[in-house]
C-alpha cells in the first residue's frame, strides 16, 4: 500500500475528527479523497504538522489527529520531545512512514534506512507508540481514538504517489472553516 491508499482507508475514521494534514501530496490527496471543513491543510511550512496539531490539542478538548510523514518528522525532530513532555490525551500523531520524501520525488529518507522513528519516539519519552503495517493503520487509528490516551502511530508503507490537483482554496478559508469546526 502507498500513502494515498492509507488515506482512502482511514478517511471514514477521521472524517468527523479535527485533522491537521501535512504539506504537499498528503494534503492534496486527503483533499481529493474526502475534503472536510474539519481538515486543516498545510499549504506550506514543511515539518510543522505535528506541532500545529499538538497546539490545537492542548488548546481545547476535542480529539486532534496530525497526519505527518517520516520526512517531515525528520525535518522537525525537536517535535517528539515536546510532544512527549506535554501530554495531551486528545492528540494522535499518525506518521505515514514510506521511507521517502514523497512530495519532492521519492528521495529516500533516513527513516527508510537505519533510523527507526518508533524507537526515536519512545526514546524521546512518548509513552504510547504503535508501529503498524499499512493495512492495519485504520484499526490502529480506531483503537487510538477509542483509547483516550495520546498515541503516536508509525504506519509503514511503500513509497509512491498518485496524480492529484493542488489545493486552490484560500488559506484563510481553510483556517476559518477549521476554526468553526473547533468551536462547533
Amino acid at each position, binding site marked *: 500500500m502507498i500513502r494515498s491508499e492509507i488515506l482512502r482507508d482511514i478517511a471514514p475514521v477521521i472524517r468527523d475528527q479535527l485533522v*491537521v494534514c501535512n504539506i504537499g501530496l498528503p494534503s492534496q490527496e486527503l483533499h481529493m479523497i474526502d475534503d472536510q471543513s474539519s481538515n*486543516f491543510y*498545510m*499549504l*506550506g*511550512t514543511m*515539518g*510543522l504538522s*505535528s*506541532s*500545529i*496539531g*499538538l*497546539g*490545537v*490539542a*492542548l*488548546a*481545547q478538548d476535542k480529539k486532534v489527529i496530525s497526519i505527518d510523514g517520516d520526512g517531515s518528522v525528520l525535518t*522537525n525532530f*525537536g*517535535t517528539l*520531545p*515536546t510532544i512527549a513532555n*506535554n501530554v495531551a490525551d486528545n492528540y494522535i500523531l499518525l506518521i505515514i512512514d514510506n521511507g521517502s520524501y514523497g512530495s519532492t520525488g521519492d528521495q529516500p529518507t533516513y527513516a527508510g534506512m537505519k533510523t527507526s522513528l518508533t524507537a526515536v519516539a519512545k526514546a524521546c519519552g512518548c509513552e504510547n507508540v504503535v508501529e503498524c503495517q499499512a493495512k492495519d493503520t485504520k484499526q490502529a487509528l480506531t483503537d487510538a481514538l477509542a483509547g483516550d490516551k495520546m498515541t503516536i502511530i508509525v504506519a509503514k508503507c511503500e513509497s509512491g504517489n498518485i496524480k492529484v490537483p493542488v489545493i486552490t482554496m484560500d*488559506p*484563510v478559508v*481553510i*483556517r476559518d472553516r*477549521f*476554526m468553526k469546526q*473547533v*468551536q462547533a
Partner: protein
Amino acid sequence: MSINTKIVDDFVANGVNFITTVPCKQLAGVIDEIEAREEIYHIPSNKEDEGIGLCAGAFMGGKRPAIIMQNTAIGVTVNTLVTLTQFYRMPLPMLISYRGELGEPVACQVEMAVHTKALLNQLHIPTYHFHKDSDADELDAILKHTFMCNKPVAILTDASFWKGY
C-alpha cells in the same frame, strides 16, 4: 514592580494564555515569570519554527498565543512566519531579545543584530523596539494591536532595556 512582572501582567491582561519559549539569557526572568503564572500554559520549544507551529495550532484551538525568543531565531523562522502565520493570517506577538546591540559582549551576536530590523522590515512585520524602561508602557497597546490585525508583531528588547548582562 519588576519589568518581568510588568511584561507578563500585560500578557495576562490581554488574554495571552499559551506561550512558547526558546531561552535567551536576557529573557530568563520573563520566562521564569511565565512559568510561574497559572493563567498561562508555558510550553518550551526546541526550535523557534516549531514554537510558531505550536502557537498557530493553539490559536486555532481558541487560545491567545505568544512566542519568546532571541533575534537569532529570525533566521530560522522566516519561512514559517511567511507561509504559516502570515499566509493564514494569524496573530503572534513575538517578544524578542535583541542581542548584538550596545553593551553586547559577544561579537558574533552583532552579526545577526545588523540584519534583524532589515529582515523584519522585508517581511512586513510591525516592529517595536524597547530601549528604555518607559518603552514597555506600549506593550499593552502592542498586544491589542497584534490581536486586532491578525499579524505577527515583533517587540525587540535590547541590552539597555534589560540593564546589561
